[in-house]
């Protein structure tokens, strides 16, 4: 059972992702910000991290940086959720250690396919 961590400050977005993932048998956990996300990563060690870039307090990029710092960034499959016009952030994040990206709005089916692909 793959463990997927959803990190997004938007309730509705989070809900969409979790509902989508619920259609398949995935173990889903949620975090509303980067700080909580890091804690959960440390605790649960998910297989996939779905990471929204734009978040208060600690954004996606910072999470990845932190993971990189800790040297564990490659232990996880990180998918960053980007909005249009975040080209630089996207590239930076990918460089830092993100593996994939998904730009909003995305189709849930698309998400499922991607997760499947990764795993």
């Amino acid at each position, binding site marked *: 059972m793959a463990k997927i961590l959803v990190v997004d400050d938007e309730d509705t977005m989070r809900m969409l992702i979790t509902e989508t993932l619920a259609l398949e048998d995935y173990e889903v956990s949620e975090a509303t910000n980067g700080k909580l996300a890091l804690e959960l990563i440390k605790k649960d060690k998910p297989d996939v991290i779905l990471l929204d870039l734009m978040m*208060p307090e600690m954004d996606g990029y910072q999470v990845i940086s932190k993971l990189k710092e800790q040297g564990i960034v490659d232990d996880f499959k990180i998918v960053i959720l980007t909005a249009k016009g975040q080209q630089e952030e996207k590239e930076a994040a990918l460089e830092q250690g993100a593996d994939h990206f998904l730009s909003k709005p995305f189709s849930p089916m698309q998400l499922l396919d991607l997760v499947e692909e990764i795993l």
Partner: protein
Amino acid sequence: MKGTKLKLILGLLIMMLFLSTLVTADYTPLNDKEILLLHSYHKDYKWTARIDQGIRDEFKEANLEVSFKTEYLDTKNYNTEDYFRDLYQIYRKKYADKKFDLIIASDDYALNFLLDYKEELFSNTPVVFCGVNNFNIVDERLNQDYTGIVEKINFEDTIEAALKLHPNTNKIVAITDKSMSGSKNVELVDEALAGFFSEIDYNIYRFNNINRVNQTVQNLKAESIILLAGVFKDDNNDVIPTDRTAQFLSNQTEQPIYSVWDFYLRHGIVGGKLVSGYYHGTQAAQKSIKILRGQKPAEIKITNEEATKFMFDAQVMEKFKIATDALPDGSIVVNQKKSYYEVHKKLFWIVVLGALVLILITIILLRNITKRSQAEDELRESNNILEFQISLERLIAHLSTQFISLDHEKLNKQINKSLQSIAQLLKADRSYIFLIDQANGEMNNAWEWCEDEISPQINNLQNLPLDTFPWVMNKLYNLENIVISDVDDLPQQAENLKQTLKEQDIKSAILIPIPGKESIAGFWGIDAVDEKKAWNNNIINLLQIIGEIFGNALKQSEYEAKLKRNQERLQLSLWGANIGLWDWNVEEDEVDFNKQWANMFGYDTDNIKNDLSTWKDMIHPEDKQEAIKKLNQHLDGKTDHFESEHRMRTKSGNWKWVLGRGRVVTRDVDKNPLRVVGVHVDISDKKELDNMKSELISTVSHEIRTPLSSVLGFTELLIERDLPEEKRNQYLELIHRESNRLKNLINDFLDIQRIETGGQKLDLAEINLDSIVNEVIELYEIHDDHQFEVEFETEENRVIADYNKIKQVVTNLVSNSVKYSNKGSKILISINSNQERFKIEVKDQGIGIAKEEQKNLFERFYRSRSSTKNQIEGTGLGLAISKKIVAAHGGEIGVESELNEGSIFYFTIPKQIGGGEDG
């Protein structure tokens, strides 16, 4: 044909001339005749000289040119036979080949000589003799060649006359000489005296030597008469000139001396019946001329008559007290006591002439003096004028320096001073400057100076229409000087001017145009009240120069005023726009900043270093490279100007966004930049705005995308999967909610747009504020956990306003309170009013707003810092929209808040529309 005719006439004329000479002359021409004058005595002998002169004069008188050969026998000194023989020899040789046409012989010796030798010397030559005493008519030798005049001396008449004149005479002494004629004379005297024997005693002496004569003369007693009948010699045996003889003798004696020869007269003798040698000469010549003309000597009678006249010396007469009327009739009195005039004729004439000359000189001198004095006057006059000119020129030179760089106030003073100096120098009564206001078609007397007793006219001469004096303006526009020496002489066209001047008693005036930008700026002039003045051209020219000086000064002052205005404007503009000015001297690497530049960064101009490195150091490191690159590009000429947006550090260490724009204004010959000038514009606000905009855009994108994403996502789930009904409902509800959110967002945007383009029209009606508040609360109470309370001070809160818009404002305020305060906290909405307006307050107990944020709250897209922190959604447009709405109603919107102490948002609506200020 013409030529021959001319020649004919000429020939005829010549012939007539020739014939006429023949006809008019009744004698053959006598030119080239040669006459021998043979004189018995010597050359200087008076008697001979007189004869000789008489001969020559006569020939001259007759207009005959003959040539004379003169020989003097000098027989007073030599008269021996041997001598004559020698002479003959000499003449023979001398005149061997000579043939004379005629010989004139004077006195006995010459005649005798000829009688002896003529046949050998000059045979067949006619002879005319004269002055001969002993003429023997029966001399054989006298042939047909001879004719002449015999000297007949009349002793009787002389003696008789003398005795008459000296009645007391008792002795006559006659003195003759020992010459040949002397002997004859003795005879004659004796004969004559014999006739008077009864009456008087007489003696006859024969002397050669003057001293013997003298002796005799001196020994004479009174009552004697001397009869001088000879010519005497001195001790050397030289003949004494006859004038000396007579003079000498007359000095030696007191007795009267009489004579028979004219050559003694005037030299001391009283007179007598005198023989004239001259007369003999003329007679001889006349006879000669006849002979030369063809008559034979034999045909010409020998004159035997007397050639004598009574002649007396007036002065000697006076000596012997002889009256003129005592003289015999027909006497000639010579040597008359000349009248003073006569005597001093020469002196008289000299004096008269001298006087005339003096008078002439005096007249000339006087004329010169007058001329000179006139010239001096003219010179003085022109000197005066010259001095005057010089003074004027000096004044002008002085004036031209005075007008350099004067400000407006000083200019005024200087002009007045100048007008005074000029008028006083020119001795005018008034001087003035008029300025022409072309736009209004008027002229104004701008400056005036006048003499103490003269009344100033400046106040009367304002706003004069230009067409008052058309004649004057015409001339001035043509840049002609108007010189009025006499006001009466003004032409008809200048009638207006004439009247005006006369009213003020002005007799003469000058008006000089002052050149200006187009045609003339005005004119200046001087008046003279008491007298007419004549102005000369040089002076006028100098006055024209003064006009130009005024013109320049006025122009200068105008420029300076303009310049000052422009500078002020620039300063004001720069200050107003808060633009900093910089001026970079590349060579010296000096940059001049203006005050605004310095202030922009929190400096004063004193504590900023004036060079390029200052500027460079202030640039934000991230922007520096790009900025410098852009600058260099322009310096190298690659770009048209320099423009760069970059951050610069303020004195307090903050970064300020600045727009730098500049341009190279001077390059050297190699196109290297020498001076760059530019501006700094504070674009912090713009940047902030830009930031906010981009933030907004990303926010908006995010805001739109988020609900959109969920709508899309959930709808896809619904489509793709078969879901249980509960799930289905849940999703649908979410979709609905999110769509609404989207709709609101878009509405907000559209509102803002509308507000921006000013398309906000108020739908005014009477609204009830309480109901609006209640409705809003109702909406929120459904979904929200806040405690809503209302406080309405007054009963009915009706006002004329736009229902929807006011509701929107209330909603916005309430929504903010809800967003920015905790769940369950209290939100109080109150309405109060006064006479002028209603006030609605929304009070919450939320996070509050920091003081520094409060002023930005109502700006577009402004979102409080805390909103991002606390994940509070919103567009940042709500308050901006509310503000606009409130302002459109004439009300005000505001906030009272402190961080963490909650906020009170309020707005007012005036009861009277238009009764408040426009937001």
